[in-house]
Each structure stands twice: as C-alpha cells, then as structure tokens.
C-alpha cells in the first residue's frame, strides 16, 4: 500500500466531515439550556410541566432556570402559560415544534461526533497504518 493510500484510509468520510462542519445550535450549546430542552422534549407533544417540577428535576435555582427558560422562550423553542387558583399563579412550560426540531438536530450532531470518533480507527490500528506507511 502506498503512503498516501494508507494515510487516507484513516480519515473520516467526506460526508461526515461536511456534516461536522455544520455549526451547533448556539442556544442549545449551553448545557443547562440543553438539559431544560431535554426535559421539555420528554413531555407529550401537547404536554406541559410546572416550573417547580422543572426546578426539582433539573436541580437548578429558580433564578437560573427562569433566565434560561426566558432565553428558550425568546427564540421560540419553549412556550409558557399561566393558570390561576385564586390568586396563586402557576407557570407551565412546554416545548414548541421548533424547539423539538432544534433539539433533535442538536442531538443528532452530538451523536454524529460520538459515532464518527468510534468510526475513526483506534490508536493501535492507526499506529499500524503509520508503521506501514513508514515501511516498518
């Protein structure tokens, strides 16, 4: 095998390389926002969850969760509604269709990175390939 051929065989396919160049969703790149979106994604398509339940599920402070939820609502990935029991206000949050789509795309991108790292040869096989290339 020529040097170039053996070295080329260790590279990622062009298609995967091209997809890896696609930028991640900047909103969901924040780990806490991604976790919030994941929690909302688990609900039924028209389902919603209380703010207090999200706090418990994600172990975030009220202020932190509130600011991240505001950011998600602002870009249209999540939506909120309120119900009142007497004077007591309850806030409900749910994922929008756009949010679900963005979350799926982001998860696909993450999965692609993990899968492509598995597809790439291990260090031992790479070493063999390099040795072959060096004619050892």
């Amino acid at each position, binding site marked *: 095998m020529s*040097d*170039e051929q053996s*070295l*080329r065989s*260790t*590279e*990622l396919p062009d298609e995967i*390389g091209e997809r*890896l*160049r696609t930028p*991640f969703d900047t909103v969901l790149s924040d*780990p806490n926002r*991604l*976790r919030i*979106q*994941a*929690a*909302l*994604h*688990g*609900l*039924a*398509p*028209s*389902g*919603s*969850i*209380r703010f*207090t*339940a999200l706090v*418990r*599920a*994600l172990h975030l402070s009220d202020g932190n969760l509130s600011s991240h939820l505001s950011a998600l609502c602002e870009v249209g990935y999540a939506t909120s509604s309120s119900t009142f029991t007497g004077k007591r206000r309850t806030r*409900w949050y*749910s994922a929008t269709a756009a949010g679900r789509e963005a979350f799926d795309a982001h*998860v696909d991108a*993450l*999965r692609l*990175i*993990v899968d*492509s*790292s598995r597809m*790439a*040869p291990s*260090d031992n096989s*790479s*070493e063999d*390939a*390099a040795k072959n*290339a*060096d004619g050892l």
Partner: protein
Amino acid sequence: MLRATKYREPRRNPRPLEWIRFSRYAHGVSYEIDRAEASLREIGALADRTRRAGRSMATGFPLVGWGAAWAAGYAALDLLDGVLRITVMILAWAFAMLMTWMPLRTVIRTGVESRMRWAWTAVMIASPFIVSAAQPSSMVHLGLLLGALWSMAMCLYAIATHDTAFAVIAMFGVVLAGVAGAQEALPPLLLFGLASGLILLTLGIYRVIVGSRHV
C-alpha cells in the same frame, strides 16, 4: 490544503500519530468526544425522566382506582347477592371515579385531558347500546362483554399515547374476558375481575410511586 500538508507530516514527526488525532477534530468542531457522550447520556436520561413522570401522573391513580374497582366489583358479582352486591359495586365505581377525577396537584399535564374525558364519556354512553346490540345470553356474559369493551378502550388509549406496558395489560384484559367466558373450570367473572383488575392495580401503584419519585 490542510490535508495535503498533514499527509507529509508523519514521516518526519517523532510522534507520527499526532496528525491522525488532529484530523478527527480538524473540521471546525472543538467539542470533545467525552463531553458529547456524557451530554447525550444526561439529556437522554432527563427526557426519559419527564416522559415517565408524565405517563405515571396521567395513568397512575386512575389505574389504581379502576384496578381495585374491577377486582372488587367483579368478585362481588360472583360471590355476593342482593343489596350487599350492589353496595360493593357502587362503592367500587365511586372509588374508581374518585381516583380518576379527584383534583390532584398535578405537576405535568398531557394537554389532552379534556379530549380524554370526552372519549371516556363516549365509551360509557356507547356501552348500553353495544350491550343491547350484542344481546348477551346471561349476566356473566354481559359482565365479560363490558369488561372486554372497556379493556379495548384502554388499549386504544394506551396505543395512542405510546404506552406499551398499559397497552399490553389492557389487551390482556380483552383476551382474558374471551377466555373466561369460554372456560368452565373457574367462576368467569371472578377470574376476569381478579386477574385483570389486580394487574391494572399493580401497574397503577407502580406508576404512582414512580411518578412521585421522578418530579
């Protein structure tokens, strides 16, 4: 070209594998693999957690109610007589209705609660007409027909909500109603009521516990 320069590196480089490692990340992405894997695991677990919690809250208490009602009500139909039988059946029905509609402080909504209420109302309204059309030959077969009909309604609800465990158990109820009506070794209503009712009750108790633990 980036790749072309990398091809020549290994022959002179004292660490010839460096370029291969680099080539994996040379596509404008600085995300580490370990971080991506950990992130995938965590968000998968989170989505699963709210999915389970939502399902448990929507079906947990109603399953407890109707499971107990079926076990007690069908057993009463077979074992008791007169006023006592009617009393037990009314109490069982009232308990099931209470478990289904009692105002719980829900933390997750499915968003289809109102539609589900209408769907079950339709099933209840349709039941006497279906019985009239089927003309069951005895009270035993009437009880089994209604049991099979309501189990089928549960199964369709479970399929619509992607609830596999509930769908399988509800379908088991339909099959059991048919088998109980065909066999003579055991009292049919008692067999149907205890077998299908206790399974519904078990699933309901499990979901109530799981639901309270998740959120």
